[in-house]
């Protein structure tokens, strides 16, 4: 049997690794990958709590389904913006896309 703590600690670790990726990486696509890791950590957390507290409820899985959808939508739009910015500025480094003009 696996105690709930294992899942929660694993999800917290994944979230913090994603947080480090978002804060420390220069490439905009790498930042998006960090965001994906954070969203996955949230999903693990939601499902762990659902399974261990009250598997009869549907709030957990419903929320996870919405998070899936939101993550997919956000990645699509984010990557479209990054590709569009790359076409104009020839860079994907987040630090260098720093003025609103052009």
């Amino acid at each position: 049997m696996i105690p709930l703590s294992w899942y929660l600690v694993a999800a917290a670790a994944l979230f913090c690794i994603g947080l480090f990726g978002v804060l420390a990486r220069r490439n905009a696509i790498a930042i998006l990958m960090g965001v994906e890791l954070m969203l996955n950590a949230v999903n693990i957390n939601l499902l762990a709590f659902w399974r261990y507290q009250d598997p009869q409820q549907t709030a957990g899985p419903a929320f996870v389904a919405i998070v899936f959808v939101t993550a997919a939508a956000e990645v699509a739009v984010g990557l479209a913006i990054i590709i569009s910015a790359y076409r104009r500025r020839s860079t994907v480094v987040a630090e260098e896309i720093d003025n609103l003009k052009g």
Partner: protein
Amino acid sequence: MQITPIQLTFMLAAVITLGSALMVVSARNILHAALWLVASLFGVAMLFALLQANFFAVVQVVVYIGAIAILVIFAVMLTRRVMQDSGPQVIRAWWLAAVLAAAVFAGLVVMLSSWRGFWNLPPTLANPDAPLVQLGLALVSPNAYVVPFEVSSVLLLAALIGAIYVAFQRK
């Protein structure tokens, strides 16, 4: 202490997930980072399967690995001037980000471990098929989650149109 096969599987899944996630945020070559992301997402799917949310395990592979990861790989390939990487991959103050992430992790673990349900064991599921049926009914029932369901489909439509418009190249 006896380690059951399920615990062994959990440890394997957690090592795959967390190890690949560490490689994602520290890989030099951005395409390798994308492939490590695929491995990490697969580890998360294994964790979902261990939680007996088998529908979500499969949907994770279809949506995240089959669509999102491929989209990320496409974007990586379309935004490279040359096929090699050069220059630093992390900002100069990366150690500050690492300290912050470690602090957040420590704070989360301390806060969660003070909760009385931290060491719970899972209740047994009477019918393994029931959660999926209940989820399906809940997502279309007016008393439950039909409004978020419909709103999320409108969100997807907006994202679809937005992504096409933003990335469109007029010849």
